[in-house]
């Protein structure tokens, strides 16, 4: 025993026998297979079929095995089409914490697909959805990012949403933001957390003014 020499090893290590490529209908059926490993494999192989996004989304409602759910999410992220984004968005409102948090992680990888709906997301009824939208702005390259953040800072009613926007403004804001920051400071005069966030953003902006 000891080391098996390179080049002299039996060939069982890889995915051999199971690897007959499955077509789209077979893969979609496979999402309901009694074996979790098979369901996971089908979810993985569906990455080549953008038309499968609805079948994948449907699976999320009933799949209970975590590693299969993660794979479905990864596949949707890789497909990354506007349809994929559309099926992921409702997950943001799900009662299922795992779905919510996974959807957030995955959608953050697709900032450009979210840009067209950004204004809508920033006005969503649910403050957690608005926080998510602000978080997506972190990776979004778009001329309106700073303005959107300023809109939130000036008019969002929820302290946690405003604070998230302030966090990002400390990184991307400039002197033109100062007025809006001061307005937020007034609006939430009784919120120590927010006062803290405004002060931090102001400090950072002041400092970067000096280093230019």
């Amino acid at each position, binding site marked *: 025993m000891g080391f*098996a020499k390179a080049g002299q090893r039996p060939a069982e*290590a*890889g*995915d051999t026998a199971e690897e007959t490529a499955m077509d789209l209908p077979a893969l979609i059926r496979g999402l309901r297979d009694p074996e979790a490993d098979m369901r996971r494999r089908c979810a993985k192989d569906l990455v080549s079929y953008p038309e499968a996004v609805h079948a994948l989304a449907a699976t999320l409602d009933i799949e209970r095995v975590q590693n299969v759910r993660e794979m479905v999410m990864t596949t949707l992220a890789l497909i990354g089409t506007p349809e994929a984004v559309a099926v992921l968005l409702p997950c943001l409102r799900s009662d299922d914490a795992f779905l919510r948090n996974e959807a957030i992680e995955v959608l953050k990888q697709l900032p450009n697909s979210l840009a067209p709906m950004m204004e809508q997301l920033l006005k969503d009824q649910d403050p957690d959805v608005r926080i998510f939208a602000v978080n997506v702005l972190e990776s979004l390259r778009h001329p309106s990012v700073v303005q959107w953040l300023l809109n939130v800072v000036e008019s969002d009613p929820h302290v946690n949403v405003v604070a998230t926007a302030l966090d990002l403004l400390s990184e991307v804001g400039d002197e033109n933001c100062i007025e809006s920051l001061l307005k937020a400071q007034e609006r939430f005069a009784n919120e120590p957390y927010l006062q803290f966030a405004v002060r931090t953003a102001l400090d*950072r902006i002041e400092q970067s003014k000096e280093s230019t």
Partner: protein
Amino acid sequence: MAVTETKGITDDDFQKFREFFYRKTGIHFDDSKRYFVDKRLVERMQALKSDSFRAYFTTLRFQTTGEELQQLINVMTVNETYFFREEYHFACMISSMLPEIASKKRPGDTIRIWSIPSSSGEEPYSIAIYLQEYWNDLDKFSVELMASDIDTMILEQAQKGVFSERSVGNIPAHVTNKYFRKDKNGMYHLDPDTRSAVEFSRVNLSDSADTRKFRKCDLIFCRNLLIYFDDVSRRIAAEAFFDALNPGGFICLGHSESMSRISGLFKVRKFPEAIVYQKP
């Protein structure tokens, strides 16, 4: 706040950069690393001809190719490879992980260990040496060592098994003498038996056609590779490792890396020597 500031990098610049870098890579620079960080930031600013930190930072954050971020990660992380680097993982392998793996196997069973990236071979060969030197049960099992890299030239070099003084510097002398022959140019040649214990292959971790050949692994070493990946590629890699491992199999990441930023697929296991991740 800080005692010395490099020209052009204020305390707040450093904070901004530090938070951003931590968010992207999980690597945290504490205040003592200020000089290290500032120097490299200034280098990158000069390379991009940015006239201020703010201008540089804007490029860094919003560049769609992510090229500058890659460059920055490269200069901020130490890329050296040498034998017995991060040795605590090998100690953990001998004292904690292999005993647990072996307890579920019968004599004569296969134990499969995968090292990726292999780079110029120091890591897989370190494993081979460690197993011969320190694992009493090596004879009871059939151990398959696999090593992969995306770079075919480095794979060729690795297969030759010839190393510099610097590369073997961390190995105790009596071990070096046992496994290497020094030639007249001062280069160290690894003995043929140890070399033949490792099977090398070219693998792109993001390509499932490549990774599906790896299954039923008991132990994976993937150290200081995932830092250089973006979030989606890290996820794909984590999935590939999950599929590659046997249930109960382990994966070791580099000392500043954590699976907690990447995927919830694995369980965290704390051993006396190291924190590693296990497939449930």
